[in-house]
């Protein structure tokens, strides 16, 4: 896991390719040839660059990305846990193994407002099912006495692949950030 923590050094060709594929491959017979055309590159070069990104762990998964809600998994609960620091990796791995779970990340606490350090996403057909699954997982992973909270999504304003396009520098004012970081 350590290996996958560093930000990869990418060439401008790699960046252009990432930009071209981040919202998905075209649904045509030769998608990489079409992407190559946009990039003034070759089909073989596009494929080998993508293979490089897979081999180096930049691409975590390669295939069909479904939207859970449209498939009937209308409830998703972001379950946040306040786990002792020396246990969080073990517990995070345990929760991440369940089929209904799609994320398991450690994030910083923001005390006093935010005590939770482990974030997991649990999907189900309705809230009751999600709540029941969370209880099952808590029991199986030994988390019954761990403070946790389920944040159900009530509205989706946006859901799409990440955009890594660099920001234009005209608004580059990093001074005086008032962020809770």
């Amino acid at each position, binding site marked *: 896991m350590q290996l996958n923590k560093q930000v990869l050094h990418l060439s401008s060709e790699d960046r252009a390719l990432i930009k071209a594929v981040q919202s998905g491959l075209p*649904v045509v*017979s030769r*998608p990489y040839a079409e992407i190559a055309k946009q990039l003034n590159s070759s089909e073989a070069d596009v494929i080998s660059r993508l293979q490089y*990104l897979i081999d180096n762990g930049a691409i975590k998964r390669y295939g069909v990305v479904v939207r859970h809600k449209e498939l*009937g998994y209308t409830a998703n609960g972001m379950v946040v846990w306040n786990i002792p620091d020396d246990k969080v990796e073990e517990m995070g791995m345990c929760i991440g193994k369940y089929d209904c779970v799609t994320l398991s990340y450690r994030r910083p606490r923001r005390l006093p407002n935010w005590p939770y350090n482990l974030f997991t996403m649990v999907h189900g057909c309705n809230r009751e099912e999600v709540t029941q699954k969370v209880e099952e997982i808590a029991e199986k992973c030994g988390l019954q006495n761990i403070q946790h909270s389920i944040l159900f999504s009530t509205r989706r304003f946006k859901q799409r692949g990440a955009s890594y396009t660099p920001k234009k520098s005209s*608004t580059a004012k*990093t001074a005086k950030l008032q962020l809770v970081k």
Partner: protein
Amino acid sequence: MTDSINDFSPLEQHLLNDFQRDMSLSATPYADMAKQLGVSEAEVLQSMQSLQENGVVSRVGPVFRPNRIGVSTLAAMSVPADELECVARIVSAFPEVNHNYERDHLYNLWFVVTASSEEHLDIVLYEIEQHTEQTLMSLPMLDDYFIDLGFKLSSTLKQTNRNG
């Protein structure tokens, strides 16, 4: 539109379930799917197109690992109910925001911001605060404990092993 997996044709079910990971990097990925499923490439292209059009498939292609080719963070805001829709619209308009959800909590707006560098990310977070006139809480990922094998849609379909 919301469907259960059983509302899809057998071909659609297989397209949704069987190619969520390790899709071939051959020049003709859809022809490869067609061959594996015993249908024509045209049928696969047509079904995949319609699954994308009605929103069931978000996309076909790479899912990038967080913080490997860029930096990202999960941000939360506590927005007064009557301002939420307006604030959410402003947040969603940023191209760097890829997920934006309302959740039933004191922190009621949760979104993911992804950028090419720390500096770019800081600028975007700053601009979001300026434009929305709201304070945000930034919670960058520190460790990833999840091995992404895709999302198993139904126990009646062909199952993939999870060797977590």
